[in-house]
């Protein structure tokens, strides 16, 4: 069945959301997703306040030891109790509100809809080898969270196979591991990056245009590249990781990008040269506190594409990469985890140096004006959860960098109907997002979030953001968006 049909049947889903809630009420308390079935843990054991995806110390160790803790059949052929199937489903529904009616959007609010369906599988495969697999279908083009580009698409989502060996002696604790995954930084255990950033839910149908992101942190490489990496975690203190990512064009690795991309197919990355990724971090745990600080980076060599109507002559394939993105950043996390109080805060700054080839279309089909540009991305958040039920979060995101009319100026937007730009070609953006949520059962989360845009395209105030080519002008606040959402996982 096509996902469009599947999702189409979920229309009028205010009823569905109600139905979801009633299912949860009558549900077995132990009936929870894949890893919980494997370990027998409640969500709150591995997730801060039970709020996925933020990981507690236990959750981090579970992942770093290869998703292998727990009881599942293994290849030894042992008789093992296996109460639940190793699969899970997640659905997210929402109703969105926009600050005003605009061109391209039509209405000030979306209908209440079931917007994302994810299937999960994985867990322990052998004593030291495990997997995390996710397949997602969504109703709208999820421009912000990447992966399934396009309307009504379904594709592979975060997927990772991990091997880990842990040696514990009275004086030492050493984890050595390796992984293959389809998203740079999917290996993150401190919730600082992309896939696992604590602002776990996005606007399904973005109200406004999208903030510029660094190539590393943006959605550009998500699920369209395959990486092989290795890591160590020594004495729960020192962490180091190296990986190489590349978009597979064919062969067995392309399974890991199934449905999301193939080169020349859709609006996705062309990471056709091996692109290294690294991370080093210091971790300290004392009492109910834990702290992490680290450095991360990636060097991405990206081919241009002819996907946006650029003449074939300007397409850089197969001559070589049109762009090289050198990203380096600092990241930190603090947590306090002691029932009934759960607190977590993150801060990250990632700076990108772009080496463009003016005159050649980049991966987005844009023609950069400058040979080099820089972009600095900042993300800060704080989350508090009480009794693993009531939560609030505030996050701040910003981008600042060099002006480039080719990348950020008039007429550069991928889709003129939904793109916004300023006359200056500035990438500067700033937004704040408060989010409150309630988790009456560990499987169900209901929340409301609001995003305030305080700067957009370098415009702080006044109506100088143009929406659409030759379109009306707005102030950043005109793009403020909010969403009432429900997430359910079983």
């Amino acid at each position: 069945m096509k996902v469009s049909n599947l999702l189409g049947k979920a229309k009028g889903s205010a009823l569905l959301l109600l139905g979801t809630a009633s299912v949860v009420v009558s549900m077995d308390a132990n009936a929870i997703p894949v890893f919980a079935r494997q370990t027998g843990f409640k969500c709150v054991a591995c997730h801060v306040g039970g709020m996925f995806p933020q990981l507690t110390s236990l959750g981090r160790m579970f992942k770093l030891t290869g998703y292998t803790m727990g009881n599942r059949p293994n290849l030894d052929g042992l008789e093992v109790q296996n109460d639940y199937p190793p699969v899970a489903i997640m659905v997210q529904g929402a109703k969105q509100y926009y600050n005003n009616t605009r061109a391209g959007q039509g209405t000030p609010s979306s209908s209440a809809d079931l917007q994302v369906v994810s299937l999960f599988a994985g867990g322990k495969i052998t004593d030291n080898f495990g997997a995390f697999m996710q397949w997602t279908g969504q109703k709208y083009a999820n421009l912000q969270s990447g992966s399934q580009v396009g309307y009504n698409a379904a594709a592979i989502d975060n997927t990772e196979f991990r091997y880990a060996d842990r040696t514990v002696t009275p004086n030492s604790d050493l984890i050595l591991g390796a992984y293959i995954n389809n998203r740079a930084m999917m290996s993150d255990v401190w919730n600082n990056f992309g896939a696992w950033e604590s602002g776990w839910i996005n606007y399904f149908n973005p109200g406004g245009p999208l903030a510029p992101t660094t190539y590393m942190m943006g959605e550009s490489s998500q699920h369209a590249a395959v990486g092989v990496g290795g890591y160590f975690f020594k004495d729960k203190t020192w962490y180091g990781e190296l990986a190489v990512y590349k978009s597979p064009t064919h062969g067995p690795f392309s399974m890991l990008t199934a449905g999301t991309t193939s080169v020349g197919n859709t609006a996705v990355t062309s990471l056709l040269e091996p692109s290294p990724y690294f991370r080093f971090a210091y971790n300290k745990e004392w009492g109910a506190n834990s702290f992490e600080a680290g450095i991360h980076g990636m060097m991405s060599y990206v081919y241009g594409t002819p996907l946006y109507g650029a003449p074939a002559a300007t397409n850089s394939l197969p001559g070589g990469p049109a762009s090289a993105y050198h990203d380096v950043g600092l990241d930190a996390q603090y947590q306090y985890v002691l029932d009934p109080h759960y607190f977590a805060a993150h801060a990250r700054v990632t700076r990108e140096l772009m080496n463009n080839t003016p005159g050649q279309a980049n991966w987005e089909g844009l023609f950069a004006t400058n040979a080099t540009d820089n972009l600095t991305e900042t993300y800060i958040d704080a989350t508090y959860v009480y009794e693993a039920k009531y939560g609030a979060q505030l996050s701040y995101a910003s981008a600042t960098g060099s002006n480039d009319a080719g990348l950020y100026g008039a007429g550069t937007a991928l889709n003129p109907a939904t793109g916004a730009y300023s006359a200056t070609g500035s990438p500067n953006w700033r937004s704040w997002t408060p989010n409150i949520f309630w988790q009456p059962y560990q499987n169900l989360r209901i929340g409301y979030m609001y995003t305030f845009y305080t700067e957009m395209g370098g415009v702080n105030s006044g109506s100088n953001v143009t929406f659409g080519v030759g379109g009306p002008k707005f102030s950043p606040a005109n793009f403020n968006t909010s969403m009432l959402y429900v997430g359910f996982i079983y």
Partner: protein
Amino acid sequence: MKNVKTILTLSALSLALGACSTGITKSRNLGNPNVTGNTLAQQVCSVCHGNIGNSVNGNSVNPTFPNLAGQQKDYLVAQMTAFHEKTRKDPAAQQMMWGIARNFTPKQIDELATFYSNQKPLPNPAHGNAALIAEGQKIFNEGLLDKGVPACMGCHGSSGEGNGVIPRLAGQHANYVYKQLNVFDRDAKTSDGKENVPDSALERPTGGVMEMVASALTKEQKRAMAAYVQSLR
């Protein structure tokens, strides 16, 4: 490009090979009865109950998780059995230990209990409030005669070392002790004025004596008790 393919292929091969080496001595399989208690202690239990930074297993860092080092073996056996049988059902037990212990064999439980009872308990690094500690010490040593609370040391030992199925309290995290006192208090309320309350209605059905104690303590007295035992060495 061929080099890259070779590297990727070799990496994948080594992953696959690594996956096939089962290594039962480093297993985190909670459903395999052949994995020893010592292996489980190192590979699984140590994640929460402590292993590094003090060079000793069983001294946990986060107060969510009780210290196990030097705990009474009989008590450990009784609790792990209760988690396995899901008869101990305070919230933390359900959140974590039910899953951990659901496939434990009696042999594994015995090995784990032996392992942790033989570990060296370290002084708890947390700093308690001196006035609370003094108040707790008085109750610990003398009880509360007017409320019928016996001296804790009568059962738990003069330095909180425990005895058999009576747990060691010395150095235990105050937050954990306080929460458990509240568990007993809730059980006391459940059984209050009723006869033949089934075990299934209680969070810790074997805690009859502690129900009496906990229900007689004020919130502050519970905190005092917890602070005092945490300070014991």
